[in-house]
């Protein structure tokens, strides 16, 4: 009986769903905000550069060389960006697997963030491909290069995007008031989470494994055979740091969306996140030191790159670790946020060092990204923020789910 009623409800609303979506397409909120005024020109220039890239070739807009084939678009948008999006699998693990309910209020926004990051970084990757149409070869399966790390990263990446979409889909159903779909989609969540975490562990570590064959090309301070393990451990605190930063910005931008009891629960969340970050960072620092000693890397420290390495490890791993530890004993919101920002800079340095700066550090013609590469990199992130804002203003991402949807969780 109940089943029938639901079906009828959906059918009778089919038409109005589409008109509702059309109506929602219109912008909400002020148009001339400082963010919009700055971001629109950058996005337009970025799109123009992408147009040039497709009409005149990659060389017209980037400075890549035959020795350094991967630049900013892969090194930053893909290798760094994926680490930043690690929060989605870490929080899903905490909430659904460890059953730590206190993180639930920030789960959806983190998964949305992760999903959009992956979508836009895939776009960055496709722009960077020389022959983008042939990407179909790895999907349709006539040419599976199964011994390739990149093949495995690609597939795990793709499937994880699907898992995140499933994890987020109940929010879309709530937005469109689709009760039956909501029930079906919610029932898929646990499966999506379990596979999402598995896929994440493998593609996060796979990103590190991509560089294993570049043994002679990466400076010995950064190259080691444990890169996959280091990448997956650092993705834990990189993801959490972005969750903390995004939370503090979202709280200023989307003020109306937060429930009344937010402040209290948010402090509790931050405190726990600081603790988890500190744990993961300690493990990472410990492993870094062991590798450093084991590979007898001390000889390289006196060089310029040695100082650069020390800055990365001491300034942007050890310092934020100390700050996180400090806020575990004496909680302070600002300290946690500062620690998160330092952590993000550290991860950025680490990933860029491995993929760009310490990669062929000895090349006769060093790779310095062209301004066009910077603009496209920033433009892609700005478009992502636009879409993020569009979704948050419409769907129950930060604000609470409607009453009818609560029983499904």
């Amino acid at each position, binding site marked *: 009986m109940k089943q029938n009623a639901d079906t009828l409800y959906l059918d009778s609303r089919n038409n109005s769903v589409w008109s509702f979506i059309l109506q929602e397409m219109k912008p909400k909120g002020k148009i001339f905000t400082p963010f919009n005024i700055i971001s629109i020109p950058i996005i337009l220039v970025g799109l123009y550069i992408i147009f040039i890239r497709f009409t005149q070739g990659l060389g017209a807009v980037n400075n890549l060389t*035959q020795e350094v084939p991967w630049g900013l678009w892969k090194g930053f948008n893909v290798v760094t960006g994926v680490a930043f999006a690690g929060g989605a699998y870490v929080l899903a*693990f905490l909430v659904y697997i460890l*059953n730590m309910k206190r993180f639930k209020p920030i789960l959806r926004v983190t998964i949305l963030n992760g999903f959009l990051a992956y979508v836009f970084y895939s776009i960055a990757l496709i722009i960077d491909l020389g022959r983008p149409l042939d990407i179909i070869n790895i999907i349709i399966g006539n040419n*599976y290069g*199964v011994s390739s790390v990149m093949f*495995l990263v690609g597939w795990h990446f793709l499937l994880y995007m699907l898992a995140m979409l499933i994890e987020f889909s109940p929010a879309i159903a709530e937005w469109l008031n689709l009760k039956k779909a909501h029930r079906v989609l919610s029932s898929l969540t646990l*499966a999506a989470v379990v*596979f999402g975490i*598995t896929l994440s562990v493998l593609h996060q570590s796979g990103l590190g494994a991509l560089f294993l064959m570049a043994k002679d090309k990466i400076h010995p301070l950064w190259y080691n055979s444990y890169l996959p393990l280091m990448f997956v451990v650092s993705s834990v605190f990189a993801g959490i740091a972005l969750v903390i930063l995004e939370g503090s910005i979202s709280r200023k931008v989307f003020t109306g969306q937060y429930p009344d009891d937010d402040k209290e629960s948010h402090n509790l969340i931050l405190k726990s996140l600081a603790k988890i970050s500190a744990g993961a960072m300690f493990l990472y620092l410990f492993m870094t030191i062991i590798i450093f000693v084991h590979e007898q890397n001390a000889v390289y420290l006196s060089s310029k790159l040695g100082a650069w390495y020390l800055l990365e490890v001491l300034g942007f791993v050890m310092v934020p670790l100390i700050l996180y530890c400090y806020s575990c004993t004496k909680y302070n919101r600002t300290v946690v946020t500062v620690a998160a920002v330092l952590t993000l800079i550290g991860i950025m340095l680490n990933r860029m060092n491995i993929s760009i700066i310490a990669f062929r550090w000895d090349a006769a013609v060093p790779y310095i990204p062209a301004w066009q590469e910077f603009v496209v990199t920033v433009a892609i992130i700005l478009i992502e923020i636009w879409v993020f804002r569009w979704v948050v203003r419409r769907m129950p991402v930060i604000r609470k789910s409607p009453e009818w949807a609560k029983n499904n*969780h």
Partner: protein
Amino acid sequence: MGINRRDFMKTVGLAGATLTFGKSVGSPQQDETTELYGMLYDSTLCIGCQNCEFSCAGEHGLDDPTDAPELGVVRKADTDHRTVVNLYETSQGEAYIKSQCMHCNQAACVTACLTQALHKTKTGPVVWREGKCMGCRYCMLSCPFDSPKFEYNKTNPKIVKCTMCAERQKEGKEPACVEGCPMGAITFGKRSDLIKEARKRIHDDPDFYYDHIYGEHEAGGTGWMYIAGVPMNELGFKTDIQKKSYPSLTKGFIGSIAPVDILLPGVLLGIYAATKSIREEGEES
């Protein structure tokens, strides 16, 4: 958050099967019964006439070289020039050296390629196949010799490198550069025969040759092998190249993927089941 056990097991099985598909294939390996062909280059015979460069350009329809080997200038192969000859001042006087793709027995680029565009043929040449490549340039990142070159300035770019004239080999002909060489500095043949020949030359004139066949063991063995009067690092070649093949560096990781894909979901479900009781008690924080 309800999901019944049967659905769950179904998903576990399905994902496990998908993700482990073909993983055991591993890095491409040579059939034991087919013999690899290769090239032996003898630097002591080379006079730097560039005939190999010209015949390569003619064979593949590329631009003729416009510059000549010169002391202090390192010419590099690029998308229009698949092979180059350089001149070095060594401890035994001036010497020429030719460079091009090494055609590794277990090539890093072939293992790196996720669409099988780079392919190690049965007889030895590593070739690039149009229509499969998506232009990710992971082969370039992985190659220890920086051999694959990318046409950055084209809208439909190719990966370009020496093919060891695989098409000519099929027709029973020698590669173009071998035919073009007036000095017999390049020898084409079965790899095992070439190693014997190289050993013989070194043995017959031990004072003249430096006792090392570059490429016999470097990077797990390469199709192109070099002998010279001096160590190869004096001729601009990397001598710290590892003796194991480059694909062996990722073997451990590739091998660990299937077990993680299969076992981790089970572990996660176990933890989920263990914390479920907490949920039922209605925990607060």
